[in-house]
């Protein structure tokens, strides 16, 4: 059984017990435990079930590479699936549940898949479920989906907050093991600004477990001194619980800091995503041990040798009483010695190497451990727990020589450098034949903004496994980093050390070497996704020879551990099957993040109220307090209508329209773009931008203008006012202000840079109010101060003055077809003017109206709306706006485009008014049908509706639309089939439904 030892465990504090629960059972651990170590201490070896076959699975590793021990954790808004038990620090009240089983972990229905495993090889689903056709969607797929997946879906809204942090460093060091610490020191002493991050809560990495001496003292002392020294340096920032998640172009590095996962009760953000810019990045990310591929290597109790000794050293937890060690290298002997030192039994060390190990083997034998060379595991027996191992010769086919009872197996297939962060941004790898591993090819690093390499690997991550040599390598990495910065690298004294003499590793990709199909079907490569040696071989046999094909066909390495344990083993099996060398097969691509990071942290602060900017006008609060039904328009939030009492939106719109047409309506038009264009060449510039002639406009006058893109399409419209000889005010649509401002700057800066014109976006300087309706003049006269009579201020004229004490610009323009004014005052005065107008307008039933009433009223007048009548494919000629296109001008933006064949075609649909014969409202977006079908069998069409409303003014439906040869077909009817099954028959009429003579606005 797995249990807590009476002694040891450098990370735990035995004086601080912690209570947590697993599958509803209350358990005890100690502060400093991970969930995995605490579960093992409670003899909970089985921690989950696999993805495909639902096989019982125990913890295999002790860190980020763990494929099996994934948990549902937390409750409600703090629930999260797929939490890795090996990297979860326990705290009081932690509630974990195992995953992927039903009804429970011990007894799981889904394990039936395991019984049929033979019928479910890699890719079986590509070859089956083909008939009957409907069954995939309705029967097979739902079954597969239910059986797959891992954790439960969260249900509640996230109760935590997250944030980002921008940080800039000369040198960022990823990994706070010995190599990372040493590299950081070298870089820092040479004057670089250094950021050092470690995913664990603890510094020192593997060296803290594996020990050894530096300068004749225990390595832990050296590490403690190093950390203290770095902490004392001004130019060094140390962050633990922060993982280097991804390396991106130009030295962009994501640091994933887990602030509250270990202490959720504290206030503050849960995770912080650091967006780091580093001139140089040192990857001191260590190495990960490889499993060995033998039958039954997934039975709970089979663990990585390094992990098994981590649990002993770090947490005082033993995985079993009798631990068989199986290895192809010297490193695993440390585990045997650690087990022995803990007072437990190691019945045998199986060393697959014919010649066995070196000094380590001697030490093991000296400790009284039986060591067998050239031996392997033929098979592990047991179901939910290891019972025994059957021993065979590595060179053979698996003939059992002996069976040894045990309750844990420590395996080691050698170590693979963690090259992920080196590779994320294009760093290349080379195959190190001697050590059977891929390591960074330092001649082909990721290239930065200047074209030079910006990532430097150090220590074990660079394939240097020896501690002492690794220190030298780390120092070298630190030096190279500062030299790349143009600094002089200071010489740092490195401690004396004795290089451990190790016998060479012997690659073992299949155990035993000649294992037959039955064993290969039980030898796991990818634990979580249930990919076995036989699956990779099947893929190769079927022609999925590229490593990417094999990966995708078998799902090798695609689980939540992203193949940290399985990639190299799988690759080796594939290469062997194809009869080619490993580097010929190549690797799959390493993609960020290194381990999964919370989506919440990526979203950062952008959620809820600050998900995106909401732009507000100075009168926003009034709208909110007066029943505004909001409409997002770009980033602005505008009132669509103001609801009174239990009025519906439709009723409110109708009321607002009638009140405006009858007396007085007020519109918050502040969002309209207001661009000031000034300079001696301003007129000439606007002549190029607008289709109309603007240079001839007289000061104090207004003119409606159209703007097209260079591709000819109508892009914006608005009233241009000439404020003085050199200065124009160009109104744009609400959505157009920034876009058109950018458009103007672009042409001025990149094409006509010698023209003397300046542009300022003054949109928000001004609050603008539409004062609309037959009583609009009266209300302004009540405010007083400016003569707004017909004589003093005619239609399409502008004046400025103190209107009722406000600093006002007054434009006599009309979008509703009534007598109306637009009043602009500085934004700080906007709300006061709005209030003053209501006060003065009370006797006229002054009514605020929203965007929908504005839309309906302009449609009643036949005015186009950008975004309704236009959609990016419409030219002004389509809309009967040829009058606004200057014939005199040689050039304007869009003119050349409009001369192209398809644009000049008289067959283009033209804007007309549409009136249903029964007064009903044509549905939004309806098309007018023509006879017959096109070559693709689609119904022919001859037009479409662009705006369609119920007009309360006229008491019937009105619409505008684009109709083939429309203006020549006045009085004809066209048919609009609706998606509601009805057909709407409409008469083609003039688009001006209301006051065609303009008698209302010109008073």
């Amino acid at each position: 059984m797995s249990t807590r030892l009476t002694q040891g465990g450098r990370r735990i504090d035995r004086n601080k017990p912690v209570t947590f629960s697993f599958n509803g059972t209350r358990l005890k651990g100690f502060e400093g435990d991970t969930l995995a170590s605490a579960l093992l201490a409670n003899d909970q070896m089985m921690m989950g079930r696999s993805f495909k076959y639902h096989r019982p699975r125990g913890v295999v590793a002790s860190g980020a590479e763990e494929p099996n021990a994934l948990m549902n954790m937390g409750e409600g808004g703090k629930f999260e699936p797929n939490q890795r038990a090996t990297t979860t620090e326990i705290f009081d009240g932690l509630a974990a549940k195992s995953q992927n089983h039903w009804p429970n972990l011990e007894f799981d229905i889904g394990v039936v898949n395991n019984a049929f495993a033979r019928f479910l090889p890699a890719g079986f689903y590509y070859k089956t479920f083909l008939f009957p056709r409907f069954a995939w969607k309705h029967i097979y797929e739902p079954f597969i989906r239910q059986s797959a997946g891992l954790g439960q879906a969260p249900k509640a809204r996230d109760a935590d907050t997250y944030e980002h942090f921008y940080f800039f460093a000369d040198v960022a060091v990823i990994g706070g093991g010995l190599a990372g610490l040493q590299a950081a020191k070298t870089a820092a002493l040479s004057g670089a600004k250094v950021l050092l991050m470690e995913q664990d809560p603890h510094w020192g990495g593997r060296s803290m477990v594996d020990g050894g001496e530096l300068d004749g003292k225990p390595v832990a002392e050296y590490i403690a001194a190093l950390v203290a020294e770095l902490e004392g340096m001004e130019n060094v920032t140390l962050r633990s619980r922060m993982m280097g998640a991804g390396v991106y172009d130009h030295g962009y590095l994501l640091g994933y800091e887990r602030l509250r996962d270990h202490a959720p009760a504290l206030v503050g953000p849960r995770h912080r995503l650091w967006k780091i810019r580093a001139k140089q990045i040192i990857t001191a990310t260590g190495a990960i041990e490889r499993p060995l591929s033998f039958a039954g290597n997934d039975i709970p109790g089979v663990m990585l040798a390094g992990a098994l000794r981590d649990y002993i050293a770090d947490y005082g937890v033993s995985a079993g009483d009798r631990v068989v060690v199986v290895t192809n290298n010297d490193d695993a002997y440390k585990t045997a010695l650690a087990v022995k030192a803990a007072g437990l039994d190691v019945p045998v060390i199986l060393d697959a190497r014919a010649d066995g190990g070196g000094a380590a083997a001697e030490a093991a034998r000296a400790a009284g451990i039986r060591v067998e060379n050239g031996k392997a595991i033929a098979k592990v027996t047991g179901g939910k727990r290891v019972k025994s191992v059957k021993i065979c010769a590595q060179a053979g086919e698996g003939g059992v020589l002996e069976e040894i009872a045990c309750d844990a197996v420590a395996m080691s297939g050698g170590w693979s450098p963690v090259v992920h962060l080196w590779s994320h941004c294009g760093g290349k790898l080379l195959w190190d034949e001697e050590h059977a591993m891929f390591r960074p090819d330092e001649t082909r690093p990721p290239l930065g903004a200047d074209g030079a390499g910006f990532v430097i690997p150090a220590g074990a991550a660079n394939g240097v496994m020896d501690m002492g040599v690794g220190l030298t390598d780390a120092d070298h990495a630190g030096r190279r980093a500062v030299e790349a910065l143009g600094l002089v690298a200071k010489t740092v004294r490195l401690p004396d050390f004795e290089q451990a003499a190790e016998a060479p590793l012997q690659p073992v990709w299949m155990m035993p070497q000649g294992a037959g199909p039955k064993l290969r079907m039980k030898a796991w490569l990818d634990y979580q996704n249930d990919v076995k040696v036989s699956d990779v071989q099947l893929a190769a046999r079927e022609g999925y020879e590229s490593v990417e094909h094999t990966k995708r066909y078998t799902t090798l390495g695609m689980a939540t551990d992203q193949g940290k344990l399985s990639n190299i083993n799988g690759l080796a099996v594939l290469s062997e099957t194809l009869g080619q060398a490993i580097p010929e097969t190549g690797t799959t691509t390493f993609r960020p993040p290194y381990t999964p990071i919370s989506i919440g942290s990526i979203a950062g602060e952008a959620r809820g109220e600050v998900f995106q900017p909401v732009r507000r006008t100075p009168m926003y609060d009034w709208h909110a307090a007066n029943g505004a039904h909001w409409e997002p328009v770009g980033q602005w939030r505008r009132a669509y209508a103001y609801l009174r009492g239990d009025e519906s939106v439709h009723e409110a719109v109708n009321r607002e329209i009638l009140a405006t047409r009858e007396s007085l309506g007020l519109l918050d038009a502040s969002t309209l773009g207001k661009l000031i264009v000034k300079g001696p060449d301003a007129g000439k510039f606007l002549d190029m931008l607008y289709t109309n002639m603007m240079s001839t406009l007289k000061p104090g006058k207004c003119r409606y203008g159209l703007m097209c893109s260079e591709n000819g399409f109508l892009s914006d419209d608005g009233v241009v006012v000439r404020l003085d000889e050199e200065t124009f005010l160009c109104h744009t649509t609400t959505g157009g202000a920034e876009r058109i401002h950018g458009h103007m700057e672009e042409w001025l800066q990149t094409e006509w840079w010698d023209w003397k014109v300046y542009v300022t976006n003054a949109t928000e300087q001004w609050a603008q109010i539409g004062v609309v309706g037959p009583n609009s003049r009266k209300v302004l006269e009540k405010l007083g101060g400016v003569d707004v009579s017909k004589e003093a201020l005619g239609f399409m004229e502008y004046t400025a003055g103190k209107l009722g004490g406000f600093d006002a610009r007054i434009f006599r323009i009309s979008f509703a077809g009534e007598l109306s004014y637009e009043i602009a005052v500085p934004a700080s005065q906007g709300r006061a003017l709005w209030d003053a107008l209501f006060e003065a307008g009370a006797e006229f039933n002054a009514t605020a109206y929203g965007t929908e009433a504005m839309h309906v009223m302009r449609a009643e007048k036949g005015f186009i709306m950008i975004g309704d009548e236009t959609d990016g494919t419409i030219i002004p000629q389509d809309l009967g706006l040829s009058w606004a296109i200057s014939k005199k001008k040689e050039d304007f933006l869009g003119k050349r485009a409009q001369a192209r064949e398809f644009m000049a075609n008289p067959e283009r649909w033209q804007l007309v008014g549409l009136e249903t014969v029964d007064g009903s409202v044509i549905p939004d977006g309806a098309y007018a049908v023509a006879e017959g079908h096109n070559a693709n069998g689609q119904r022919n069409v001859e037009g479409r509706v662009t705006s369609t409303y119920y007009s309360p003014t006229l008491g019937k439906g009105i619409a505008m639309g684009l109709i083939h040869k429309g203006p020549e077909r006045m009085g004809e009817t066209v048919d609009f089939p609706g998606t509601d099954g009805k057909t709407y028959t409409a008469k083609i009429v003039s688009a001006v439904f209301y006051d065609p003579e303009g008698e209302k606005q010109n008073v």
Partner: protein
Amino acid sequence: MSDVRSALAGASFEGIARVAEAGLRGMISFRGDLSASKVKSALKAVSGVEMPGQRGCVVNGARGLAWMSPDEALVMVPHAEAEDAVSQLNKALKGQHFMAENVSDARAVFTVSGRHAREVIAKLAPVDMAGFGPGEIRRTRIAQVAAAFWMDEADALTVVCFRSGAEYMFGTLKMAAQPGSEVGVY
């Protein structure tokens, strides 16, 4: 006109730093040849300070000048004086090609102060706040909106954004300043 209002009526928040809307400031967007001596002296006349160089920012109480681009300066004066300042510039530079627009009301201004003020900004703006000090204006983005800021003194920053985005700016600054979120790197 007495009833003039800033966007948030001086709202404030205390977290790991103090975030406060600073009320209305007089601001003039000036476009022109910043190297011309006439321009320089006109700008100095209204602002009381010398035109600074590239990305420079000189603030003296309510008055100041900031270099916004090779042909743009931000002129700061008391809010009530902004219109007069524009007139003064128009008069002084008559006949030149330039532009002076009163944009006081198009802006919202915040102060972020306290020991962690720089951290609050560094959570939202892609700028190295470690090397940022008084005398410089940085135009960039804060979260998702364009903004500019400068440091008045150590641990006190002024942030300028568009008025319509004041609520958003305040909201993101509050998030960044939430209690318990100290980073502890400066």
